[in-house]
């Protein structure tokens, strides 16, 4: 199913048959072990997560990328978008840690100061972003000072 007018090839049909068989095996396992797996909750979570991504996270990412950074100079825009995306992923990842959602009477669980640690990681990300911008600026400056090829021609006496 690669292009609208392309007929499905052998790989497509093999993948379809094998993939749906494996999925069916998973569904049967999920149902057979329903006391542990709670199949309806798992199915609900599948759909919920896909919907949250498609209806909320992805549109927000596009809007943040387009509106949030379009006013920046072109040389800064890419690194800022990259650092923003990376920061968002790290913040979401660290959320249960910072909120100590899994905390219990066990000193070895969540043993670190996750708020300050998250701040350190975010600072490192933005420092890396700044380093990319500086590198770009230096490169652009070097290119500006390089003589054009025509200036290096023998006719110019070089």
């Amino acid at each position, binding site marked *: 199913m690669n292009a609208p007018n392309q007929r499905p090839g052998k790989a497509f049909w093999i*993948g379809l048959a094998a*993939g*749906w068989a494996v999925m069916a095996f998973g569904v049967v*396992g999920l149902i057979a072990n329903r006391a*542990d797996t709670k199949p309806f909750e798992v199915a609900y979570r599948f759909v919920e997560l896909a919907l949250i991504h498609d209806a909320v996270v992805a549109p927000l990412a596009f809007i943040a990328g387009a509106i949030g950074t379009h006013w920046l100079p072109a040389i800064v825009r890419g690194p800022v978008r990259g650092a923003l995306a990376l920061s968002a992923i790290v913040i979401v990842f660290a959320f249960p840690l910072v909120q100590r*959602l899994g905390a219990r009477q066990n000193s070895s669980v969540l043993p670190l100061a996750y708020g300050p640690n998250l701040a350190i990681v975010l600072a490192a990300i933005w420092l890396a972003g700044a380093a990319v911008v500086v590198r770009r600026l230096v490169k652009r400056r070097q290119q500006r000072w390089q003589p054009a090829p025509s200036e290096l021609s023998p006719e110019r006496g070089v």
Partner: protein
Amino acid sequence: MTIAPPKRIEQWRDRQMDDPRHNDRTAAWLGLVLGVSFTICFATGLLSHLIQHPPSWFVWFPRPAGLYRVTQGVHVATGLAAIPVLFAKLWSVYPRLLQTPVVRNLPHALERLSLVPLVGGALFMLVSGVANIDLWYPWSFFFPAAHFWAAWITMGALVVHVGAKLTMTRQALRAQPRPLDETARTATTDRRHFLAWVGAASATLTVVTIGQTVYPLRHLALLASRRPDRGVQGFPVNQTAAEAGVGVIDAATYRLRVDGAVSTPLELTLDDLRHLPMRTATLPIACVEGWSATRQWTGVSLRDLVAMAGASADRSATVVSAEERGRYRTSPVNPDQLADRDTILALLVDGEPLAPDHGFPVRLIGPNRPGVQQTKWVTGVVVA
């Protein structure tokens, strides 16, 4: 179907599709990395499941001693590194979601239908996996069982997707970039920068967590839920004695029973155990949640104990904990593990008596076993 999105959305979609970060080549690279990552997670996860629930045809050997630490460490680290790749892939192909017609024919319908378990399943695997390593359970299912069976559904959907996109992926990866005019050069640069940021994101999550199992990198593990050097006696505890409902076992009244298929059933006090020949082994304790810590354990070799009770060395055994309930209150030891002298009923760790949270007075520790099978507060050995 002839449902079409509004004109402005169509225009936006077409504009995005021209962006190199949303083209076939980018999607193919991200898909390839994601496919490999999920396959690694699936293989290592399946292995962990087989070790914990061994069918009759499966044998897990006690050597090399640190193999499970590696496979489970790889499972968790690969899953974490895949998080940015998954989001990048979904972002990259998002404009295609709005392609029309929504469904062209039956095969296309089946392929698109499999995107629901693929996207939902991939997100479920990573979200539930991360919550589990953080010991956060905002659901009612038993994590290992749901994670395991959901993995089959997700991998099935991945197989459908690979079959459907194989030709396109091959073509996109083989395609030589067009002659580098200014536009093509900018496009290539944009794509490379995008992929570099995705790689940086994966590297970041790896660096801030991998120290939970790679000891020399522990100080970099800023966002790991465990550190191999933090906890009672200097290493982590998964379940405390209080959580297990065991409390502090009275050393004076403690008894270890060895029975089952033996000629001389044993009942040993803690003092009896202390006077038996001791064996010391340096072994990792490797948790399914991805952390691990190496310690020096001293105790009685299970093989010697079983021999004392008159059983032959080719037996298997079940080690029983003082816990009254819980899925892991017993632990199977197969004949290869039992024959290994380093499968120990440990009384000491790093030369000190075990703390109650580490299984005082006696815990099982053996080479190449998941942490949940290193049963604590051992009160019995049943030989089969």
